[in-house]
């Protein structure tokens, strides 16, 4: 790592550039899609394995681990969601584990995978899907769509429209109600997506900056930051999950 300003900038920019095919909106971030799908597959494979051999006898270590996760998520759902919905708990589990796995990629040494990819002739590689806005917003917009789906399904289209138009100021201030509702509903996915993105993007950036230090001093900053990051990645996954549950439970309740 050279310490001259120019190549340091180049190094950072290089690390923050996605492997991309296509141009404009229809471009695809191959690295984001690949890593998120792989991590999703890892999650499904692990939990599927546990689920297939799930037994009410003494559980094996894998089943035990999966049960802890499931129980944890189930408790969260039961605490904040009082309706009946078979989707929410598995949805929350998927979000929690998937986001957690995304974030965990941040703990992989920042140069390791890009360097290997470089040897294979791949010019750019970003390994943490949650530092890509497309990932976090893909998830938060999906959650918003689910919120709308259940709002309309549970309350009925007429009741839902009424609610949008007359809450919270009553029917005489209809435009304001609508405006407020739009702001409120826009805030949900934006806050969800940006919170996760911002935390992980900043974390990754710090790792990149630490990687610019001389090699013999890096651990003095890298180690504490990585330890701190263990908290951050878990917390962010947890927050995303809990907020999803809260939004969906709001969709099931009358205001």
């Amino acid at each position, binding site marked *: 790592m050279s310490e001259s300003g120019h190549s340091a900038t180049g190094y950072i920019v290089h690390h923050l550039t996605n492997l991309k095919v296509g141009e404009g909106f229809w471009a695809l971030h191959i690295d984001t*899609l690949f890593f998120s799908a792989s991590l999703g597959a890892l999650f*499904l494979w692990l939990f599927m394995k546990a689920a297939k051999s799930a037994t009410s006898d003494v559980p094996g270590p894998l089943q035990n681990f999966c049960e802890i996760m499931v129980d944890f998520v189930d408790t969260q759902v039961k605490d904040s969601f009082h309706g009946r919905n078979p989707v929410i708990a598995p949805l929350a589990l998927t979000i929690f584990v998937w986001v957690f796995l995304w974030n965990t990629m941040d703990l992989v040494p920042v140069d390791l995978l890009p360097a290997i990819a470089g040897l294979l002739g791949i010019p750019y590689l970003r390994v943490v899907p949650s530092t890509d806005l497309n*990932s976090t917003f893909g998830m938060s917009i999906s959650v918003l769509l689910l919120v709308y789906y259940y709002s309309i399904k549970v309350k009925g289209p007429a009741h839902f429209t009424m609610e949008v138009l007359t809450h919270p100021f009553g029917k005489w201030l209809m435009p304001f109600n609508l405006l407020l509702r739009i702001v409120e509903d826009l805030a949900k996915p934006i806050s969800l997506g940006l919170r996760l993105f911002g935390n992980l993007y900043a974390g990754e950036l710090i790792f990149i900056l630490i990687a610019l230090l001389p090699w013999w001093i890096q651990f003095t900053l890298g180690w504490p930051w990585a330890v701190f990051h263990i908290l951050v990645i878990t917390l962010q996954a947890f927050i995303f999950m809990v907020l999803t549950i809260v939004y969906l439970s709001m969709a099931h309740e009358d205001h």
Partner: protein
Amino acid sequence: MNFNATLIGQMITFGLLVLFTMKYVWPPIIQAMQERQKRIADGLASAERGVHEQELAQAKAAQTLKEAKQQAADIVAQANKRANEIIEQSKLDARAEGNRQLVAAQAEIEQEVNRAREQLRGQVVNLAVAGAGKILKREVDEAANAAMLDDLVAQL
């Protein structure tokens, strides 16, 4: 900060993951957990029941033991009573037997006395007759005087 089709790709991936989790991951794990919970609850309940039953059995054993002790005490008391009765009875019997033997002895003694008296009386009569004969110096017709002698004997 560039949005592009990756967004849509991520949404599709997310949807598929959720569907899969819902169908194949969540239900078996949660079911196994609920079954185990039920089994643990049942186990605890039956342990509780076992403890309760043991208490009952202990109480019952104590009760039986108490009854057996009571019975044994009753039997001992009865035996004592019976033994006393037998002793009393034996004393009574012995006393009665003693009395009977005493009476028999007295009767025998009396008999002996009577017999001796009879003998004495006979001898007295003979002596009297011999004395009278010597005094009278004559033959006494024993046959004629027998009635008189018997009468005399009876008077003695």
